[in-house]
């Protein structure tokens, strides 16, 4: 397994091996799927759209519907304006969405297609919308693309009527529908009225009814996106996924924002609750306090199995940083943190975390890859690996317990329905981690040490 990976350090400047990120457009497609009656549209070769739909479907095990401009060599030479025009007509004709959300690809970006002017020239039917964002694959990652698409919706649609609507705009970041549901449940429990953008719950975790719906019940409505401009405040989760759209809403409609880390673990969920409370100015309900207390209780219960255990975490920057803080809360040591997404903020925040919890010898790297993470593990091993499916090869090669969390998970089921965020999500993640470590202890125990009670 991964026999060519050795521990000797080697400085690479050109060859990416086993990436921990993918390209912008897939993130944009995912964001657009979180808008009700929206057709995500990939402006590029068919293959981009096919790959992204394939990948999202494999993660969510639900249809990921999107259309494409189907570029050919001719379009690549003469520009994709005609393709987009034809596409828009056919999409409105055949699939009748309320809105088309176009994202670009490295192909249309490289030839310099001007989407602003293309869309202005398109005859969008009355009551329908067409928006776009630029997602060149050679910049950032799928997280950047997600962020750009959310900002695109806001820039095109959100309007301030001059009268606040008393709602909080929640930007959930690149998380699963299960997480979005949990963020909404907490807001509701706190008595906050909100709009969430995007909201893939009810779309990418839609129920089996015996009838396929091209546009399932879920998703943020266009009306809600427009009204985001009247929100009293934005709560934006994750610097990498949500700062750009929060800034866009602030700039366009003067909605102030609080940029919070993804609410995974105790401290970071506390921050979310405090932000909601500072808005409602009422006491936190007992139901929330009870959940928090349960999570703390659990962490105390399981500490003999987690304390001082070393963990390597990889995946998307906002997710990795929040899981890192949670494992620190569990008394574990986040030995290695790797994201493929570029950005200095990742390493800086990670360093701050290491200092805050007083742990030493931990490393964090942005714009990294799984090959390098594996090299680090070979140099000095860890007790647990946390990340998406691609980590299973390292876990097997090094015989390390592995917890799947984040994106993408294409070799397991159900994960997208279940939250990692909030105190409830913390309980789930704590259970996954404790079980992985304890299963390993059981597996490795000598027969006479194999315990009935643990």
């Amino acid at each position, binding site marked *: *397994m*991964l026999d*060519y990976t050795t521990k000797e350090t*080697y400085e690479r400047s*050109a*060859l*990416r*091996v*086993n*990436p921990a*990120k*993918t*390209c912008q*457009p*897939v993130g944009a497609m995912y964001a657009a799927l979180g808008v009700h009656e929206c057709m995500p*549209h990939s402006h*590029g*070769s*068919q*293959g*981009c759209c*096919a*790959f992204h*739909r*394939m*990948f999202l*479907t*494999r993660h969510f095990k639900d*249809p990921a*519907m999107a*259309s*494409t401009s*189907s*570029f*050919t*060599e*001719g379009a*690549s030479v003469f520009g994709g304006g005609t393709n987009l025009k*034809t*596409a828009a007509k*056919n*999409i409105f*004709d*055949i*699939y009748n969405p309320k809105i088309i959300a176009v994202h670009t690809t*490295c*192909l249309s970006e*490289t030839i310099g297609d001007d989407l602003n002017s293309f869309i202005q020239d398109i005859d969008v039917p009355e009551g329908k919308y067409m928006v776009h964002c630029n997602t*060149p*694959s*050679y*910049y950032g990652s799928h997280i950047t693309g997600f962020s750009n698409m959310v900002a695109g919706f806001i820039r095109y649609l959100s309007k301030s009527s001059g009268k606040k609507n008393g709602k909080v705009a929640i930007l959930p970041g690149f998380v699963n529908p299960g997480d979005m549901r949990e963020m909404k449940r907490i807001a509701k429990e706190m008595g906050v009225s909100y709009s969430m953008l995007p909201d893939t719950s009810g779309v990418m975790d*839609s129920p089996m*009814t*015996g*009838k*396929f*719906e091209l546009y399932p019940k879920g998703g943020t409505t266009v009306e809600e996106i427009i009204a985001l401009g009247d929100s009293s405040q934005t709560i934006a989760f994750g610097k990498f996924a949500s700062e750009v759209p929060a800034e866009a809403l602030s700039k366009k409609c003067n909605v102030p924002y609080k940029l919070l880390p993804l609410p995974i673990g105790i401290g970071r969920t506390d921050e979310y609750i405090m932000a909601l409370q500072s808005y409602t100015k009422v006491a936190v309900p007992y139901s929330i306090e009870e959940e928090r207390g349960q999570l703390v209780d659990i962490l105390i219960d399981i500490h003999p199995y987690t304390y001082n255990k070393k963990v390597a975490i990889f995946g998307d920057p906002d997710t990795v940083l929040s899981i890192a803080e949670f494992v620190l809360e569990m008394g574990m040591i986040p030995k290695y943190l790797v994201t*493929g997404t570029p950005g200095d903020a990742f390493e800086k925040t990670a360093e701050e975390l290491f200092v805050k919890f007083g742990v030493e010898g931990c490393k964090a790297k942005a714009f990294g890859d799984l090959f390098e993470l594996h090299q680090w593990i070979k140099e000095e091993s860890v007790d647990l690996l946390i990340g998406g499916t691609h980590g299973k090869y390292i876990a097997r090669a090094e015989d390390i317990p592995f917890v799947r969390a984040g994106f993408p998970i*294409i070799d397991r089921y159900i994960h997208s329905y279940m939250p990692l965020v909030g105190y409830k999500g913390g309980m789930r993640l704590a259970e996954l981690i404790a079980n992985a470590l304890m299963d390993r202890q059981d597996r490795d125990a000598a027969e006479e040490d194999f315990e009935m009670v643990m």
Partner: protein
Amino acid sequence: MSVMNKVLDQYNSRVYKNRKEHMVDVNSNDKNEIAANVRTIPGIITQRGCCYAGCKGVVVGPIKDAFIITHGPIGCAYYSWGTRRHKAKKGEGEDNYLQYCFSTDLQEPDIVFGGEKKLKQAINEAMDLFHPKTIMICSTCPVGLIGDDIHAVAKWAEKEYGIKCIAFSCEGYKGVSQSAGHHIANNQLIKYVIGEGDRKITNKFAINVLGEYNIGGDGWETERLLKRCGYEVVSTFTGGAKMDDIANAHQANLSVVQCHRSINYIAELIETKYGIPWMKVNFVGVEATIESLRNMAKFFNDPELTARAEAVIADELDNIEQDMAYYKSKLKGKTAAIYVGGSRAHHYQFLLNDLGVHTVLAGYEFGHREEYEGREVIPFVKPDADSKNIESITVEPDKEKFHVYLSEEDLNKLKEEKLIDYYSGMVKDMKDGTYMVDDLNHFETEEFLKLLKPDIFFSGIKDKYVAQKGGTLSRQLHSYDYSGPYSCFRGAVNFARDIAMGIYTPAWSYVKAPWKTAPILEGTIGGVQ
């Protein structure tokens, strides 16, 4: 109104006109002409992929010891990393890079100033870290647009490191589907690999298995069967193969072709250059496998081989008979629709027939007219701008390596029988009143499923859950839903087991909640319950 017209009628006139050409209401008295291998209309939710997917993903990706660097931004390499289930074992002293993904991960400055320098550096790093004997470079869309000369870089790498380095200009925008990528990959393998090997081959029943990608272990099962019969598989294109196998393909006496679409160029070029004829076979389905084995034996025309093939057939049949009978009893009378690939939509009809399942609709994602109508249409297919853009290479007979197994007279006889150098296409195996639909798109999938109500829809991951949400079992025929092998005799049982499992899984019976059909109010009217 026919089912086909009911679907088409919902389109605007321009789309109607285009899509009508891609649908055939099969009638054995008609020509059953179909439009294929032409552009998908922009905006249509097609399941098709791109040229890169056909070249890197399909044809060269499975070669285990080729170190493939995807030259471009990260996405294309990432999506084709371990996602197609082409399995390969690492033998003693062999390389296998399939667990790895390599890319130049081009960034904005590389797009502006060119990516050749980065590609060269990536090769330097690959050589330092992995020491591969073969490097392949596959380009993605922006690379073609910014004009990186990947072929010059490949030449440089060969000189610098004394390795084999082959460049594939398989930018996604070329052609109209994955098909263009197959062609580009075929061209380069013929130009730079096939014919270079000098492995000693003594078995006169030496064959190449072309167009077998070892998805879910299909190739291994096929090879096991062929070896039992006495064949030596010189090369498999390209499932589980190593470069050396491919380099020796010119030494076989017969090429058998499983997936015609993706590999027919090589089949023909090998014949012209080295004298090896090709035979279309199908190892999907019990009856189809038996026929393929018999046809092969007929070609080699050796009594011992023929007897052994018959003994193997009898033994393999004996092993699966009971299981097949059981599953047939569970599946007989069911109907299926198949939309996949450039061959499987045809091949799987045979296996379904074995199980008593009737195919009501079939279509290819990237097939050409010959996969539908048979190779006899090739002279009538007009090349368009998109297909003309893909280089078509010609080869001359290789004076040293050209060899024949059969006399010209015997070979011509087999050609007349259409056993050699011929593919019949799917339509001749489809019953009247069934449908062929090319590039079946999302809208048509939904509508045909509603109207034809098949029990099973065989397709890919993108429309699997569309069908299932609508209440129709869907199985992926690209990835076999992570099962397999499905080839030959044992594979047929695996397939039957998987279909039966899907149809009889209890969860289907819970789709409607009990309160949906029960009255909400219960009470008495005038004292009467």
